[in-house]
C-alpha cells in the first residue's frame, strides 16, 4: 500500500498488492454524520485478487480483465496497449483528435479540476482519483514510447514511468473511476477536458485489446446489436410487454389506453431506455397516459433497435456507438416519423441528439429531441391539467449530466416542476453545475464483484449528500415522503441502489422516480395516486 498523500503517477506500476485503500471518504450530512450509519468496504476476496486486477483500490470495474498466466502474455498485453495508444493519435481516432491533442499538450496542471470532481472529493481527496493523475500517467507513457529523442530528453519531457502489466491494468481500472461527467472541464481555465483520457483509455482497451466490462460490451452493445435491446428483449417479448403495460395502466387509472406501436408516418417515434419496461414500467406507462390525454400523434417501434434508446458505446467504444446510432436512425426512417423523441434516459439523449449529429447526415438523419420541451409545451398549452396539491411533499431535482451540462436542456424540467410540485427545491449546486449521480458512463449497470460498493460509497456519495441537504428540513421526519426526481434511467438506477445501500427509504422515507410519474400523479383526471408510495 502506498500512502495516498505521497502517491505520484510513477507509482502506478509499483509492485504491491493494492495501491490504495478507500478508508477516508468524505463525511456525509445529517443524519449520516453519525457512526454506524453506513456499511464499511467489504474485504477483497483472495480469489478476486488472483483473477482480476484488484491492485488499484481493491475494486473491480473490468470483469473481463484477467490476470495473465505467464510473462509472455503480460508482455503481449503491454505491447497491444502501446499499439492502441499510438492509434489514439492517428486517423483511426479522427473524431476526437483535436480535443485530445489540446488536453494532451496544454494542461497546465494547475489542479483546478480536482475541486470540481465529485469522485476525488468523495474519496476524501485520494490522490488516485485526482483528474490529472490519470491524465499524467497517460502522458508519461506516451512520452516515453512515442516522443522522439534519447532517454534523457524523454525524462526531461516527463516520460519517466515504468511500464508493466500492472501499470496498464491499473490504468484500465482507473479509466473506470471517472463518470465522464465533464464537470472538471467546465472549470478548466484552458478549456481542457481531462475526462477524455478516461474515455480514450477505455477505447484502447475495447477497440484494440477487446477488453470491456461485460455489462457494457457483451451484455450491452453486443447484445443490443444482436437482439435489438441491451435487455435482451426481442420483438415478440416487447409487444407482450406493451400489452401488459396497457393492462397495468387500466389498473392504475381506471381506463384503458391503446399504446400505438409501429404507426407509420406518426409525428413522434418515442424511444425509451428498454430497461424502463423491465425495472420501472410505470415510467413508459406515464408517457403513454400523458401523450394520450394530450392527443399527441406518437408511436413506439417494435422493430429491431427501435425500442431501446440506450447506446453504451458512447462510454467506451466509438465503433459500437456508431453502429447503434445508424440502426436506430434506419428504424425511424423506415417508420416515416417526423422526429425521434428520447424518453427519460440521459446518455441516450446525448447519443442520439449530440453524438449522432456528426455521424450521419441528409435524409438518413431523423431530427432528435428530448422529451422535456414537448412535455413543457403540453403543460404550457394546458393540454394537460394538473392539481399540484396531489404532489404536496418535498421534491428535489437531479440534473442528468448528459441532458443538462452536455445539452443545455435546463429550464423545461424546472418550469414543469414549478407547476406540479409546490414543495420543489433545488439541490446545491444544480443546473449545469450539478454533480453526477455517480452512475454515469456505465457505473450504474456495472455489477462485477464489488464495483457497486465503489459506486455507492464513492462515486454516488456526493449526490447522496446533496439529497440529504436538499431535504434537511424534513429528513428526520419519516412520515413525510421526500421525492428525488431523476429524469434518467441510469441516474434513477443509481439513486435506487443508493437509497437501498444507505437504507434511506426504509429509515427516512426518501423516494425516487422520474418526472413523468410525478406529472401523472398530479393530473386532474386521475382519481387515485399514481406514485406507489402514496398509495401505500
Amino acid at each position, binding site marked *: 500500500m502506498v500512502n495516498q498523500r505521497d502517491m505520484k503517477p510513477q507509482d502506478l506500476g509499483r509492485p504491491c498488492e493494492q495501491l490504495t485503500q478507500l478508508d477516508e471518504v468524505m463525511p456525509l450530512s445529517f443524519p449520516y454524520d453519525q457512526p454506524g450509519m453506513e456499511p464499511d468496504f467489504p474485504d477483497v476476496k483472495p480469489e478476486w485478487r488472483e483473477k482480476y486486477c484488484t491492485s488499484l483500490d481493491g475494486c473491480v470495474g473490468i470483469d473481463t480483465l484477467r490476470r495473465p498466466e505467464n510473462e509472455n502474455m503480460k508482455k503481449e498485453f503491454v505491447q497491444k496497449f502501446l499499439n492502441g495508444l499510438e492509434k489514439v493519435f492517428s486517423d483511426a481516432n*479522427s473524431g476526437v483528435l483535436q*480535443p485530445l491533442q*489540446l488536453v494532451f499538450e*496544454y494542461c497546465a496542471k494547475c489542479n483546478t479540476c480536482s475541486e470540481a470532481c465529485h469522485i476525488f472529493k468523495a474519496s476524501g481527496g485520494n490522490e488516485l482519483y485526482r483528474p490529472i493523475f490519470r491524465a499524467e500517467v497517460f502522458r508519461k507513457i506516451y512520452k516515453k514510447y512515442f516522443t522522439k529523442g534519447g532517454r534523457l530528453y524523454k525524462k526531461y519531457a516527463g516520460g519517466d514511468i515504468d511500464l508493466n502489466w500492472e501499470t496498464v491494468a491499473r490504468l484500465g481500472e482507473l479509466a473506470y473511476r471517472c463518470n465522464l461527467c465533464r464537470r472538471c472541464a*467546465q472549470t478548466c*481555465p484552458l478549456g481542457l477536458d481531462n475526462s477524455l483520457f478516461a474515455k480514450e483509455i477505455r477505447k484502447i482497451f*475495447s477497440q484494440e485489446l477487446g477488453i470491456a466490462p461485460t455489462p457494457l460490451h457483451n451484455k450491452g452493445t453486443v447484445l443490443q446489436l444482436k437482439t435489438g435491446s441491451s435487455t435482451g428483449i426481442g420483438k415478440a417479448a416487447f409487444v407482450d410487454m406493451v400489452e401488459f403495460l396497457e393492462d397495468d395502466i387500466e389498473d392504475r387509472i381506471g381506463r384503458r389506453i391503446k399504446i400505438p406501436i409501429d404507426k407509420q408516418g406518426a409525428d413522434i417515434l418515442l424511444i425509451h431506455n428498454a430497461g424502463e419496461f423491465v425495472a420501472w414500467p410505470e415510467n413508459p406507462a406515464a408517457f403513454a397516459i400523458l401523450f394520450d390525454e394530450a392527443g399527441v400523434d406518437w408511436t413506439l417501434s417494435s422493430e429491431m433497435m427501435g425500442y431501446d434508446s440506450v447506446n453504451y458505446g458512447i462510454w467506451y467504444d466509438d465503433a459500437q456507438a456508431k453502429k447503434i446510432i445508424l440502426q436506430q436512425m434506419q428504424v425511424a426512417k423506415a417508420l416515416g416519423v417526423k*422526429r425521434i423523441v428520447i424518453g427519460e434516459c440521459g446518455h441516450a439523449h446525448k447519443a442520439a441528439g449530440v453524438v449522432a449529429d456528426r455521424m450521419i447526415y441528409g435524409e438518413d438523419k431523423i431530427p432528435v429531441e428530448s422529451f422535456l420541451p414537448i412535455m413543457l409545451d403540453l403543460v404550457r398549452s394546458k393540454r394537460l391539467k394538473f392539481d399540484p396539491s396531489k404532489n404536496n411533499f418535498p421534491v428535489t431535482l437531479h440534473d442528468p449530466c448528459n441532458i443538462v451540462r452536455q445539452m*443545455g436542456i435546463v429550464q423545461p424540467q424546472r418550469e414543469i416542476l414549478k407547476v406540479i410540485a409546490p414543495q420543489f427545491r433545488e439541490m446545491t449546486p444544480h443546473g449545469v453545475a450539478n454533480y453526477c449521480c455517480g452512475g454515469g458512463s456505465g457505473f450504474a449497470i456495472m455489477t462485477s464483484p464489488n464495483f457497486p460498493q465503489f459506486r455507492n460509497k464513492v462515486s454516488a456519495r456526493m449526490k447522496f449528500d446533496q439529497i440529504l441537504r436538499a431535504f434537511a428540513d424534513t429528513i428526520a421526519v419519516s412520515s413525510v415522503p421526500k421525492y428525488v426526481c431523476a429524469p434518467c434511467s441510469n441516474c434513477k438506477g443509481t439513486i435506487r441502489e443508493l437509497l437501498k445501500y444507505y437504507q434511506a427509504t426504509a429509515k427516512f422515507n426518501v423516494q425516487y422516480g422520474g418526472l413523468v410519474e410525478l406529472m401523472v400523479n398530479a393530473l386532474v383526471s386521475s382519481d387515485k395516486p399514481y406514485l406507489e408510495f402514496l398509495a401505500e
Partner: protein
Amino acid sequence: MILGLSVYAAGILFVVLTAYKAATYAKMPLHGRMELYPVPSERGRHIYGGSYMEEVEWWRKPHEVSKVTEIIDMMKEMLFIRKLFDNQRPFWWMSYSLHLGIYFMIAWTFLLIAGAFTDLAGLSVSAHASWWTVFLYYLTIITGAVGFILSTAGALLLLVRRIIDPILKKYTTPQEYFNLTLILAALVSGIILWSPDLTFNAARQFTADAITLSIIPNATLVIHLIILEVMFIYIPISKMSHYVGKYFSYHKVLWENAPNVVGSHMEMKVKNALSNQAKTKWSAPHMQPPAAPPKEK
C-alpha cells in the same frame, strides 16, 4: 547588424511558428460534438446554461446566437482569466500577475517602438516637450515598471509554488520548470539591463538602434537578447503557446454547438469528414470487418 537582424528573426519566427501551430490545429479533422454549457453564444439562454435544444422542434427554428455575449465571455477569459478566478483564487493571483504583467510588457514594447520612431523623427521623448512626447515618456515608465514587477512576481511565485507545493510538485516535469525559468530569466535579465535607467531612455535608444540595425552590444545586452530571442522562438513550440490552444479549446470544442441540419454548412463538413476512410485500423475482434460469405462453387 547581426544582433539587430536576430531581433527581427526571433520576432518573425515567433509569428510564423505560432501561425504554424494554429494551422496544425485548424487542419485537424472535424471532431464529435463536445460542447459544454453554458455556451455564451446562446442568445438569452447563456445566463443559466440553456441551449436551442430546449425548444420543441428546434431544427425548424432559427438558431439564435449572439456574438456579443460570446465576445464578452471571451474577453473575461482573456483579460481576467475568469475561470481561474472563480475556481481557484489563490492560484489566480499568481497566474494573473504573470499574465497581466505580460500584457503590460507587450504594451511597453509598443510604447518603446513608438518612442523610438518619435526619437528618430527628431522629437525627443522627454518630460518637457510636446504632449505626445510627454505622454510617451510617462506612459512608458509606468507601463514598463508595472509590467516588470507584475510579470516577474507572477513567474517567480508560480515557480516557487510548483517547487514547494507537494501536489503540484508531483505533476511538474523538468520541462515545465524550464518553461517558467526561461520566462523568469528573460525578465530578470531585462530588469538587470534596464533598471539602472528607470526613464527607459536606454531601452528606447536600444529600440531605435534595433530598428536601424545599429545595436551597440555590451555583455548584459547580449545575454538578455539571447535569452529573450530563445524564449520567443521556444514559446510557440512549447505548451506556453496555450494562447493558440485556448482559442481552439473554447471556440472549437466547448462552445461549438452548431447543429448538423439539412442544407447547413455543418452538414457539408460532416459529409466531407465521413467520406474520409481511416487507413489505421483497430485490432480487437469486433473491430474487424465481417467475414465475406463463402463463394458458391
